[in-house]
């Protein structure tokens, strides 16, 4: 629970013809995280063609399912085998044929939709041209010396096109605009038409074909438009029936294609990490939990009857950054894991902060939002939302319970401080003590995170960082020294001299380490050392002071409640109760959300950033799935 499970790197050598089945079996096994294999003699990547074919087939299948609708859940038969490359290519070709058939239908539908919009535009345009009082038949005569174009272009391009066309003696007159499309008449000498053709194409000019039917009396034009629209409606009905037909024709086979593509997915996924091979041999490499090795051996023996070679390899100390992290958590801790992982994944061998995170997060939340009533409502609301938010709602339940516990300690219920006696202290009546406790907690928390960082760096083999860096023992010495020095100034302890000596020594070691580590020119070295050493000092203290917000929010909670009571006291009976209820809702929603975020912020920035690199690689095993997400 505090660190990732020990893993072993396995390299499975086998016949190339069985690679897809091996990947499929490993996916069924469910605990094989593929990685790039490194056998010098097997320098080729035989699975890349497989992956390529799979990607194409998967992409086509996704588009087809989008077009034809889902085909239902996919069940994997026990004895199902993965398709070979040839099978996959054949499947891909078939999918292409189906897609072309669907595409034709899709294009017809799109064309009908476009034609409908064009009719709408024509109708509007006709109305506008009528208003212009122009005889279109006369204007668009083909034997005139003047060439006239009626059409549309992007509105933003009109000015520029007008400028450019003026060089060829053409005029542009805009007469309408729909959305970003401007409708215009362009007129100019017919002899210079060749000069403008390219320009108009470049400008995205769409000639508005004015059919003969529109070059007539408006009433006749309108009846033509209605006939056209009826025709389009009829065509659309035909296309709908075609879609239904396609669905009926290809549906069952598409479902089978989904199954085969899902069975091919494990090798395609492993190929992304890197499957190597040569001739008739392939090697699949990956990480497997050490405790499941026997299970893996049994599975391979049962399926491949000795036609394989398994090579095992323990992770070397310098390899930690490449080894995936597999941490198994008890059920009660799982709701907190997404909050930890949203910051990062623990590196292999690194301390996993999930457990201290859960305890400290709840502690901070409770301390900032201690109220029996409000906590109880959060608890009940979270329980009610369990079906909707699943496991995550348990974080709310726990936060509500801890809030109630602190409410008991503070003697606060819906903001009332006089209903029950405080078991421990009331923040409003003893604010200085609360502030001192918060800062004291911050000091302890920061020391804890620095020690964790020392442990992590040491475990990763970065001994010099563990000892001399700002987050190492030297940084801790400086911090403890400075805290001791400041505490002596306030008269809490009498350790001024040794404490300041420790602080100066710690900071000097940190500066020296930064100087040695900054491998750059003199200027950059001075800059980096000065800034980073200063940053060490400033950060540690600003981070400590950050914990004052715990006290501030616990005071704020009571103060907000007092404000609500004061407002309510000035109103009549109905107003009084409405204000009390609304005020409490505001406190729960607004302050509750702020406190939840602040507690998370303290954990991330004052805690995790100090010891948790979070740059680990999550253990992602090959799995059998029919989901259409891309790998």
């Amino acid at each position: 629970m505090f660190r990732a499970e020990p893993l072993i790197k396995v390299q499975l050598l086998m016949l190339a013809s069985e690679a897809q089945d091996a990947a499929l079996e490993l996916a069924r096994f469910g605990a094989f995280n593929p990685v790039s294999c490194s056998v010098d003699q097997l320098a080729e990547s035989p699975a890349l063609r497989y992956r390529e074919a799979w990607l194409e087939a998967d992409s086509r299948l996704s588009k087809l399912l989008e077009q034809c609708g889902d085909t239902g859940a996919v069940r994997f038969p026990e004895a199902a085998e993965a398709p070979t490359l040839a099978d996959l290519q054949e499947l891909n070709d078939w999918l292409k044929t189906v897609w072309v058939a669907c595409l034709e239908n899709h294009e017809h539908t799109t064309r009908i939709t476009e034609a409908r919009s064009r009719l709408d535009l024509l109708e509007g345009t006709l109305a506008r041209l009528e208003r212009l009082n122009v005889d279109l038949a006369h204007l668009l005569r083909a034997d005139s010396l003047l060439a006239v174009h009626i059409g549309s272009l992007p509105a933003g391009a009109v000015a520029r096109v007008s400028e450019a066309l003026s060089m060829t003696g053409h005029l542009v007159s805009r007469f309408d605009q729909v959305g970003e499309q401007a409708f215009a008449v362009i007129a100019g000498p017919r002899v210079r038409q060749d000069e403008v053709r390219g320009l108009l194409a470049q400008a995205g000019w769409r000639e508005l074909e004015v059919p003969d039917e529109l070059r007539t009396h408006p009433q006749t034009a309108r009846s033509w438009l209605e006939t056209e629209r009826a025709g389009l409606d009829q065509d659309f009905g035909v296309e709908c029936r075609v879609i239904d037909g396609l669905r009926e024709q290809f549906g069952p086979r598409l479902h089978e294609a989904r199954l085969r593509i899902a069975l091919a997915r494990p090798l395609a996924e492993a190929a992304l990490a890197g499957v190597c091979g040569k001739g008739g041999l392939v090697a699949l490499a990956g990480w497997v939990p050490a405790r499941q090795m026997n299970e893996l051996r049994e599975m391979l023996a049962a399926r491949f009857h000795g036609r394989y070679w398994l090579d095992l390899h323990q992770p070397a100390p310098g390899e930690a950054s490449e080894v995936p992290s597999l941490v198994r958590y008890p059920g009660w801790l799982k709701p907190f894991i997404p909050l930890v992982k949203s910051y990062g994944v623990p590196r292999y061998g690194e301390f996993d902060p999930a457990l201290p995170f859960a305890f400290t997060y709840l502690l901070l939340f409770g301390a900032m939002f201690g109220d029996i009533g409000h906590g109880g409502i959060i608890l009940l609301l979270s329980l009610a939302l369990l079906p909707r938010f699943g496991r995550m709602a348990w974080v709310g339940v726990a936060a509500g319970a801890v809030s109630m516990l602190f409410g008991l300690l503070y003697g606060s219920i819906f903001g009332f401080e006089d209903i029950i006696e405080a078991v421990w202290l009331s923040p409003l009546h003893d604010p200085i003590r609360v502030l001192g406790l918060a800062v004291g907690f911050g000091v302890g928390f920061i020391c804890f995170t620095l020690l964790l960082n020392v442990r992590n760096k040491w475990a990763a083999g970065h001994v010099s960082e563990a000892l001399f860096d700002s987050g190492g023992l030297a940084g801790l010495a400086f911090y403890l020294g400075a805290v001791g020095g400041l505490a002596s100034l306030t008269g809490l302890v009498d350790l001024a001299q040794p404490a300041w000596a420790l602080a100066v020594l710690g900071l000097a070691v940190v500066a020296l380490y930064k100087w040695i580590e900054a491998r750059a020119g003199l200027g950059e070295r001075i800059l980096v050392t000065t800034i980073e050493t200063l940053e060490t000092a400033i950060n540690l203290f600003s981070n400590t002071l950050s914990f004052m917000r715990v006290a501030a929010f616990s005071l704020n909670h009571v103060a907000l409640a007092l404000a609500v009571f004061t407002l309510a006291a000035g109103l009549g009976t109905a107003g009084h109760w409405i204000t009390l209820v609304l005020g409490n809702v505001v406190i729960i929603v607004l302050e509750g959300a702020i406190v939840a975020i602040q507690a998370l912020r303290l954990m991330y920035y004052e805690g995790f950033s100090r010891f948790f690199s979070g740059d680990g690689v999550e253990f992602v095993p090959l799995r059998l799935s029919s989901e259409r997400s891309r790998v």
Partner: protein
Amino acid sequence: MAGLELGSGKKLKMSAYLNTRVSLYSGRLLRDQDIDALVRLPQAEMAETLSAYGLPQLAAGFEPAAAHEQDLRSLEQRIIAQILDETQVLIRPLAGDERSFLMYWTSRFEISNVKTLLRGKMTGERPAALLARLTPMGPFGRIDNQELAHAEDVGELLQRLENGAYAGIVRLARRAFEDSRDPFNLDAALDRGYYEGLIQRARPLEKAEGAPLRNLMAGLIDRINLVWLLRYRFNYGLPPAQVYYLLLGSRYSLSGTLLRELASLDSLEAVLDALPPTWQTRLAGAADVPSVFIRMEQLTAELAARTLQSSAPGMTRAFAYLLLRERDLRAVRAVLRGRHLGLSEVAIRFALQRTPERVM
């Protein structure tokens, strides 16, 4: 008021950081001797020398490694990765318009990916082969290459692009391409759309950052307009009106009226003679489009070098640095490619056509 002071204090700190970072980076810019040394350098020392020049991405391509670990990216991809790495460091202290401007400056590599995707779809290239040719954009990437590479044809690809980050640029390009099916229309519209976007992002900054940024933008945009004008008019033989339409709409030193006049002329010499006297002096002796480009680029580089050494605002200096760095990397690419092709030292030096930058 306190917030305002805090904000300007933070800005001041960030500006000090950026200025220091740019000054430190400017020490990495290559002199002609450095480029020349690369021409003669033994292959075994190449990785170390490129690392010493602050080019770790390029050095990675020369490091001896086991076959399965070798860096398989192309030289072009490694050069772009280097520029992106440095841009990422430079934009770290920036926010708002300044950050958006420098980030958009890197987008032209992604526009180049878009062109590769479009050409690949026109020729029916396999998605895997197409993907291998795309430049990884890392955190600067705004499009899903995987999804786009698996589009069935150009039409579907354009539709998908229109739903993405470059919708504005692609929409115009699609309209230009749809009827004509001419790849030139597509490329020209994409280029024009990209640079119009750059100018649009530079406008508010030119007011805030003042003359240095405006001068840099003027050097860049005027060069593009003049070179495009000459190329479209005399290499592709397009009619004057179309040439004028294809130029960038925003004007710096070359006015719209002047560009219209230039586009109407019938020869490169006539165009160069019709330029303002200062331009004629700058371009004296240039007889073809490539030499005009080299001369103009040289002028932009000199201006950028002066800006870098001046007390211009941090973002402008960072932009000047990136212009110079990219020019350096193009020279390094020419050398490495020349060496790879087994060209003689003389031929490589001729191809470089690089003269030292003078700071006036």
